[in-house]
């Protein structure tokens, strides 16, 4: 574990892998150190954003070092199924890039459990990591200026669902009618950190 201060606004904790991030996140979500206003899990870091008026980084660092991460545990936020129609414009390209062909891409996407590692990019945009690496593909050379809401896409080790129409450089493999972001829902994000996801063919 490495600790990096972000001036007096936060502490970036670097860990070995996502598993460790989620284990520490699970513990700190339940018992956040005094003065921590936000926890931002990412692929191999956890940011503790602090209120400098209420704490200092020494105290936050001490709390992190004394926290007892729960290996193998993740924030208990349950699991969901997301129905997907696999008709994305880049599906054929992904089939070629991975050497799997379209049908096996679909089977690989539906055939593994994905976990939301973290959110970012836009409200409700979750970065999901899987358990097999056959679907790892680069981003498109030319990002699209408009990706429709509900698009299901791949990039690097991640898959994701676009919560609203936005620009985007991920490879589109399909779309879902599931609503990734809904302000009238609590929480508004469907894909919260730690939630486990199965994609099923619609």
């Amino acid at each position, binding site marked *: 574990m490495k*600790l*990096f*201060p*972000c*001036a*007096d*606004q*936060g*502490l*970036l904790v670097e860990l070995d892998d996502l598993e460790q991030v989620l284990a520490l996140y699970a513990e700190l979500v339940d018992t956040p150190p005094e003065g921590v*206003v*936000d*926890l*931002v*899990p*990412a*692929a*191999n*870091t*956890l*940011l503790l*954003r602090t*209120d*400098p008026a209420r704490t*200092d*980084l*020494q105290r936050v*660092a001490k709390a992190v070092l004394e926290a007892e991460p729960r290996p193998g545990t993740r924030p208990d936020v349950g699991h969901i199924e997301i129905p997907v129609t696999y008709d994305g414009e880049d599906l054929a390209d992904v089939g070629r890039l991975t050497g799997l062909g379209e049908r096996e891409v679909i089977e690989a996407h539906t055939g593994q459990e994905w976990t939301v590692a*973290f*959110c*970012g*990019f*836009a*409200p*409700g*945009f*979750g*970065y999901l990591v899987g358990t097999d690496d056959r679907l790892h593909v680069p981003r498109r050379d030319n990002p699209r200026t408009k990706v429709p809401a509900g698009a299901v896409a791949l990039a690097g080790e991640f898959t994701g669902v676009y919560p*609203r129409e936005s620009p985007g450089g991920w490879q589109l493999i399909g779309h879902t009618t599931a609503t990734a972001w809904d*302000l009238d829902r609590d*929480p*508004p*994000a469907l894909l*919260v*950190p730690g939630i486990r996801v199965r994609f099923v063919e619609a």
Partner: protein
Amino acid sequence: MCTLKVVAAGPLSTVQDRGRPGLAALGVGQSGAADRPSHRLANRLVGNDEDAAVIEVTFGGLELRAEGGVYVALTGAPCPMVVRAPDEQPRTFAAYSAVWVPDGATLSLGVPSSGLRSYLAVRGGIAVPEVLQSRSTDMMAGIGPDPLAAGMRLPVGAPAGNLPETDLAPVCPPEAADIVLRVVDGPRADWFTEDALDALVGDSYKVTTDSNRVGMRLSGPELTRSRTDELSSEGMVCGALQVPPTGQPTLFLADHPVTGGYPVVAVVLSADIPKAAQARPGQRIRFVRVATPGGDLDD
């Protein structure tokens, strides 16, 4: 209930309060007033709760008509303020004071003499509906009320407390010359050459026109990297100086994205972020490197 009718919105005026802390894990940043001390002061001058919603006015130009008499106060970038009441001579007011705007009168803000963002508090607060417990417009996430536009009507809330006896706050206006910001080495400072860290503080950076509530793109000495591998996206704080492959840093402000994929070379101390939020395009910023407050974390 009083309302404020927007006659002209100026270049950009938005409703802001303290924002949405605690939702970063869902991809929602804090947002809120870019210059928080000015936001709080404006509220105090009209007897509001410090966190009440105000109008953040970018580079003046706002004109409002009061439908019902209201007390207002302007802080941050000082704009000339003119109140025109029906059948009365126009009256001019200074910033940092509480001002009565009678029913039917218009309030017009000119261009600020220094600084970029002004905060117009109205007694009772701007009472647009909350979204995720805040009335702030988050330009990055597209959450909260739309930016002000001519014809819009803003509801004013009920006064929360007594009017303060102080009706003028003696504060310094934002710096018109170079802005000095204290920075601490960022979490990825070691991804840069030692020359880059010297360059960051050795000369000044110009605030470019490519600047908004999300962040300011700066132009100045190029910051060269010692490591060129890809950084996994990671959480970012307000005040982070992130460096894309161009080597020109971006200073992130209130509506910054929750995570970023480029290394952060340095972070502005929280106490200096309000000064950064008042920097105008064309103005120059000098960074001064200081030690992490409180010392080494390994102590």
